[in-house]
């Protein structure tokens, strides 16, 4: 049971960033009027960030990871969250074994 000071600092920073986005509505409510285009860019933030985080692992590691990512993307069109994780993990284990 350890609590590293640097880790704690990082967690507190993350907590403040998250809380700021959650209470922003108190200041913004009724005043936010985004153009459809700005709205589309705003809606694109979560997928853009998620993809940016995983792209090195999916595209710049090796062919087993890239192939497993493609399979997971295919699975994501019809399976729930954990099904996709199961397909991706099983695929990467299989492809790495073939390597």
């Amino acid at each position: 049971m350890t609590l590293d000071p640097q880790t704690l600092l990082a967690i507190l920073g993350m907590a403040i960033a998250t809380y700021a986005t959650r209470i922003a509505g108190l200041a913004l409510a009724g005043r936010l009027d985004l153009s459809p285009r700005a709205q589309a860019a705003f809606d694109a933030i979560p997928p853009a960030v998620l993809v940016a985080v995983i792209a090195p692992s999916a595209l710049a590691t090796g062919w087993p990871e890239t192939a497993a990512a493609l399979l997971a993307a295919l699975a994501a069109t019809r399976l729930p969250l954990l099904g996709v994780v199961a397909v991706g993990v099983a695929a990467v284990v299989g492809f790495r074994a073939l390597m």
Partner: protein
Amino acid sequence: MSTLSEDARRGLGDIWPAMLAAIPIGLLFGALAAGKGLSPLETMVMSVFVFAGGAQFAAVELWTTPAPIGALVFSTLLINARHILMSASLVPKLQGFSRWQKLLGLYYMADENWALAEKRARTHRLTPAYWFGMLSPFVACWIATSTLGAVVGATLGDPRRFGADFAFTALFIALVAAFWKGRVTFWTVAAAGIASALTYRFAGPPWHVLAGALCGLAAAWIAAGDATPEPSKPEPAQP
């Protein structure tokens, strides 16, 4: 008093399917955090203070020792930026809430309970009893399962043996599918993926997150304003 407990019970009744779905996700998060060297206590502290699944998964993926504070905070801010719009939409519906109830209640606003509250507000007045009745078990469940996952995960050893290191990638692909809105999302994902992978290769972490996110946003902006966009080269290996 009877409406108070009735509303609280209704909140619990509405949230439990989301809670059930969050149990394996929490366990997975804890196990992955343990794989990156976070102790169960650190994992618990993160779930208590941050309570944001997507941002927490991203943080653990980016985690190195010592913790890269700037990159972690920035990635958290970007992933949770959607909460700005969500809270702006929810706040006008919190009319029966005191100032403190708002400040405390919004601390734990996440995708699931926000969506349920918005749904409830369409037909009923949103009461603090309903909101906190929904929130408390959900938050407790996330804290408990992620901590348990960290305890169990620490005993499993090298996550690469089970392909668990790839669980993030697969999970994020599934989450992207949940945010899918057609053509605009396609260009967002393609641009973000290519830009991030190239930046990672040539500049190294953590710059790939910023570069990928910005290119994704730019692609969304272009795609949303144009009927037939050609913003980026076609790429077969986009996730």
